[in-house]
Every structure is written in structure tokens, then in C-alpha cells.
């Protein structure tokens, strides 16, 4: 509830801020639009932004309620860099934006109530709840069902991982799919009551940075710094997940969450790093291929994934420069 409420309040406040921000950015200025309220999963990005600031990029953070709005703000010139994975928009609407680095890959956890189901086979013909029609969560469930040779029954749509978590706890839902934070909350609040079903590596982008081609070409120096710092923080946290907490304390990130979030952040990044979900090399063509496959399956991209061209969605110059400087991992 607090989350939803906060979002609503923030969205209102941000609408006011965005409206008042002038459309013209000066050199060295970078307005970054988050498509979602930053949570513990954003520590890496936020730290990279702080480091880019230290190197002289004047970053202004804008938090929006929805990824679409971030893309809209970029196209409208009210923000320079967006965070999300706007493949659909690029393909369907042909907006002049390109992804220039991947931050992290998707991680979802199908969770079932252990009283009713034990593994994938038990879900044959059963009702499951996912985020929304045509969402990544639905694609994961359908993909896994196919892999295990079962057919899911009715798929219902319940937006918000935290809403599905509560419904699972209340018993309204028996099988659903949640994100990492809510999976851990489920395990903490009702130990042993739920079983997390195995999912193979998805590899698709969860968060990536994107901007207009024009901005990327005219502000290469700023963009390079951001990409380099994103790669560095990703690598640092993957090597030593405790670094996430250090970064948080150093840059005083997410102060609202208080000191008690440190433990959660450490656990989150330990798990994420083990799963290899933080992009060490910024994605690039490889990530694009994975994304094409996944988003085609989920219906967000149209056409044969093999026929989609990387350069229609990605702008690789900044990433190539950063990798040349930092080396590939």
C-alpha cells in the first residue's frame, strides 16, 4: 500500500517537476528518467550515476510512474536518458530512440503454494496469476509450461508483484510469479509455505539505458562516462556483492529505506550476482539477440527474431568505446 501510495504521490510531484523543467539541456547536463520508483534493485544504477556526477556530468534524476512515460519524456525532449527496455516502442512507433547499454537481465520467480502444488507438472490446467496480458511474467510462465510439456489453465492478470505477494499470503492466489524482492519477502513471512519453481536463465533485458540517437552523438563524452560507470559498478558488485551496501552508504542512496535495508540489499545483490543478472559488458549485440527472442515470445516484438536488426534497436558506439577502455569480462 505504502508503495502504491508513494508512487501516486511521486507521480504527481514529478509531473509538476517535468512540466517545469526546460526542454533545453546544456552541455554536461544529463536528465535521467527512471521508469519506476527506484528500489533496492536500482542501487547499481544510482551508484553509477553518482560516480558519473563525480566525473563532472551534471545529472538530474526524474522518476516517472511508467516506462512508457520515460520514453515519452525522452522523445519529447524533457529527459535525455531513460531506463527500461523500450523495444515495443522502437519497433511499433518508430520513435528515434536507441538502447545503448544493458544494466541487468530479467529475473522472475514462479511461486506456488506448497499445499497445492509441488512442481511444474502440478500446474497442468491450473490457474496462475501474472502481471499483465503480454507481459514478461506471462511469457516466462508460458515458456516454462511449454518446456515442461504442460498447459496452464486460466491465466489471470494481477499487476504489481507486491499485490501478488499479498494475494499469495492470503491464499487468494495459489500460483503466481513475483520478482526477487517479493520472493524473499514471501520466504521471510511464510517460511516453507511456498515453493519457488525452477526457471532457466532468461537472459532478456530488465533494465537498459536508452536515449535519442541525436543525444548519444552530441553528448558522447557524458554518455561514455555513464556507460563506463555502469559497467564498473556492475562488475564491482558481481565480484563482491557487499559492495552494493558500501556504495549505498558512500553515496547515501535510497535514504528513505533506512539502515535496515542494508541486509536486504546485500542478500539481493548476492543472489543477483550469483545468477549473473548484472550486465558485465553492457549487453550489446548478444543481449539484443536474447531480447529479440524473449520479447518476440512475449508478443512485445513482431516478426521473426532472426530477421530483427540490432542497429534498429541499439546504438553500440558508446558501449564499444567503454569496452575498449575497460576490457571485456
Amino acid at each position, binding site marked *: 500500500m505504502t508503495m502504491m501510495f508513494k508512487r501516486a504521490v511521486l507521480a504527481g510531484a514529478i509531473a509538476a517537476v517535468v512540466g517545469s523543467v526546460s526542454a533545453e539541456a546544456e552541455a554536461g547536463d544529463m536528465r535521467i528518467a527512471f521508469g519506476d520508483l527506484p528500489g533496492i534493485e536500482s542501487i547499481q544504477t544510482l551508484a553509477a550515476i553518482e560516480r558519473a556526477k563525480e566525473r563532472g556530468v551534471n545529472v538530474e534524476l526524474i522518476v516517472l510512474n511508467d516506462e512508457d512515460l520515460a520514453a515519452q519524456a525522452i522523445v519529447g525532449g524533457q529527459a535525455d536518458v531513460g531506463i527500461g527496455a523500450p523495444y515495443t516502442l522502437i519497433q511499433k512507433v518508430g520513435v528515434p530512440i536507441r538502447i545503448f547499454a544493458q544494466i541487468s537481465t530479467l529475473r522472475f520467480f514462479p511461486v506456488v503454494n506448497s499445499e497445492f502444488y509441488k512442481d511444474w507438472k502440478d500446474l497442468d490446467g491450473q490457474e496462475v496469476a501474472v502481471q*499483465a496480458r503480454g507481459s514478461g511474467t506471462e511469457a516466462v510462465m508460458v515458456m516454462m509450461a511449454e518446456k515442461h510439456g504442460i498447459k496452464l489453465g486460466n491465466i489471470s492478470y494481477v499487476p504489481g508483484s507486491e499485490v501478488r505477494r499479498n494475494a499469495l499470503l492470503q491464499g*487468494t492466489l495459489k500460483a503466481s510469479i513475483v520478482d526477487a524482492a517479493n520472493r524473499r519477502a514471501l520466504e521471510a513471512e511464510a517460511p516453507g509455505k511456498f515453493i519457488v519453481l525452477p526457471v532457466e536463465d532468461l537472459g532478456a533485458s530488465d533494465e537498459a539505458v536508452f536515449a535519442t540517437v541525436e543525444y548519444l552523438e552530441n553528448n558522447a563524452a557524458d554518455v561514455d562516462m555513464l556507460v563506463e560507470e555502469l559497467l564498473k559498478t556492475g562488475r564491482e558488485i558481481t565480484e563482491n556483492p557487499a559492495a552494493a551496501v558500501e556504495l549505498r552508504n558512500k553515496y547515501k542512496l535510497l535514504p528513505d529505506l533506512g539502515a535496515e535495508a542494508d541486509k536486504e540489499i546485500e542478500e539481493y545483490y548476492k543472489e543477483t550476482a550469483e545468477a549473473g543478472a548484472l550486465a558485465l559488458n553492457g549487453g550489446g549485440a548478444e543481449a539484443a539477440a536474447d531480447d529479440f527472442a524473449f520479447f518476440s515470445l512475449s508478443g512485445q516484438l513482431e516478426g521473426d527474431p532472426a530477421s530483427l536488426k540490432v542497429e534498429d534497436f541499439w546504438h553500440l558506439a558508446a558501449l564499444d568505446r567503454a569496452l575498449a577502455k575497460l576490457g571485456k569480462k
Partner: protein
Amino acid sequence: MATNIRLEGEAGGLALPLRRDAVGWQDRPILLRLISIALFAAIWEIAGLIPVSFAFPTFSDTLVAFFGLLADGSLPSAYLSTLQPLVVGVVLSAFLGVGIGTICGLSRTGEWLIVPVFIVLQSAPVAAFIPLVTFVYGIGMTAKVLAVMILALPVIVLNTYKAVRNVNGSLLSMCRSFLGTRWQSISKIILPDASPVIFAGLRLGVAAGFVGVVLAELLITPTGIGDVITFHRSRADYAEMYATIASIIALSTLTLVFLQWVEVRVFRPEKRGR
């Protein structure tokens, strides 16, 4: 419009008899309405062609998308599911609202106990606490009906309450002087005299109910219209998204016009004019 002028003319002692004969184009309401709709569509088309935003389709694209949605059955089936919580919520709100409003209007205790609750509800930013409903009532039909009622009930209750409270005093005195019982004064004087404002409240309640059901379908679980809107938005099919939004606005408007027509035809013959 023409009927209104006639009415006022008669009430004012036939002061405007000439107007009746002057039937120019500006006296044809249907023509005027069609022109205004065409103008709106033209402005929309131009705005879509500029375009004001990459996410803003033209009117013609939207119209095509609308018929596409009708043809593939997604819009009819969406309405079928949206109308359930809407109708249940609005009907419950109408009966409950008029009942509660009448009680509040008739009794001081009721007024002090109940009216503040509805004043708070009416002025509260309801969208912010619709998600709360899910925490108590889950994600099913109950939550959606409740969302409709949260929006529809206050306006119906408050309108009824004000109408009942402000009934013409001399009519009540008349009823008393004819030795009317309490029940007779309610059924023969108070409710008929309050009915115009009660009906206005019901119309506003229905409009609020539409807001409630769409909010519920966007914020609680995407079913029906809410699902069609979110789905096409996630797929960047903006023409379909706007077509759906426009269709619910149109449906809401038509419903209100229809209710007004029913009100005048069936319940208030004195307003018919002929």
C-alpha cells in the same frame, strides 16, 4: 433547446412567441451537435497528423481501430465484463444512496452521523485509496463493485440529502394543514418535490460509477476495458488504446443522455413541454 425556450416563454407569460417560428439552422439541435462532433473529429485528425506526440493517433486511425476491436470481438467481450461491476455497483449505490440520503435529510441524528462520512469520501482523492480496497477485499468482483460504489455513493447520498432537506416549506405546511400523516408528507410531498435534484444526483452517480469501474480495472486487476487499454498500451497500439478510451467516454455520455431522456419522459411529465 427549442422546447426549453418554449417552456420558459410559457412560464414567463408567453413573452417569446416569435422565436417559435424562426427555425433557422441554429435552432436545429441535431445539426448543431453533428457539426460540433465533426469539428472535434477534424481537430483530433489534425492533432494526430502533426503529431502532438508519437503516442497520439489520428481520428481516422482510431476509428479504424475501433471497428477492428468490434470485429474481433475483444471490445464487446470487454464491455460484457466491465458492465458487471458497473451495473451492480451503480444499482446498489442508487438504492442505498437514495435511502441513506433520505434518512439523513429527514433526521438530524442521521445527518450528523452519516453526512460527514460522505462529504469526506466525496472530497477525498479516491484513486489513491482504491488500491487499499484490494488489501481488504482482494482482487475479485467485490473489490471492483466497491470501487464503483466508493465513487458513486457519495454524490447520490449528498444530492438526495440536500434535496430532501430543502423541500419547499409551504408545501409541507400545506400537507400538515390538510392533516397529512408523516408518511404521506414523505411520499406525496418530500420525495416528489426532491426528485429533480435526486435524479441529478443519480446521473452524476452513474458518471462517477464509470470513473470508478475504469479506475478499478486499471488499478486493481486489468479486466474488461481496463485490460484492453493496458494491453494495447503495452503493445504500443495507441490507436486501439484511444479507441477503447473514446468508446467508454461515448458510452458514458450516451448513458447519461439516455437517463435524462428517461427522467423527463417517464418521471417528470411537466418538463416535457408538449
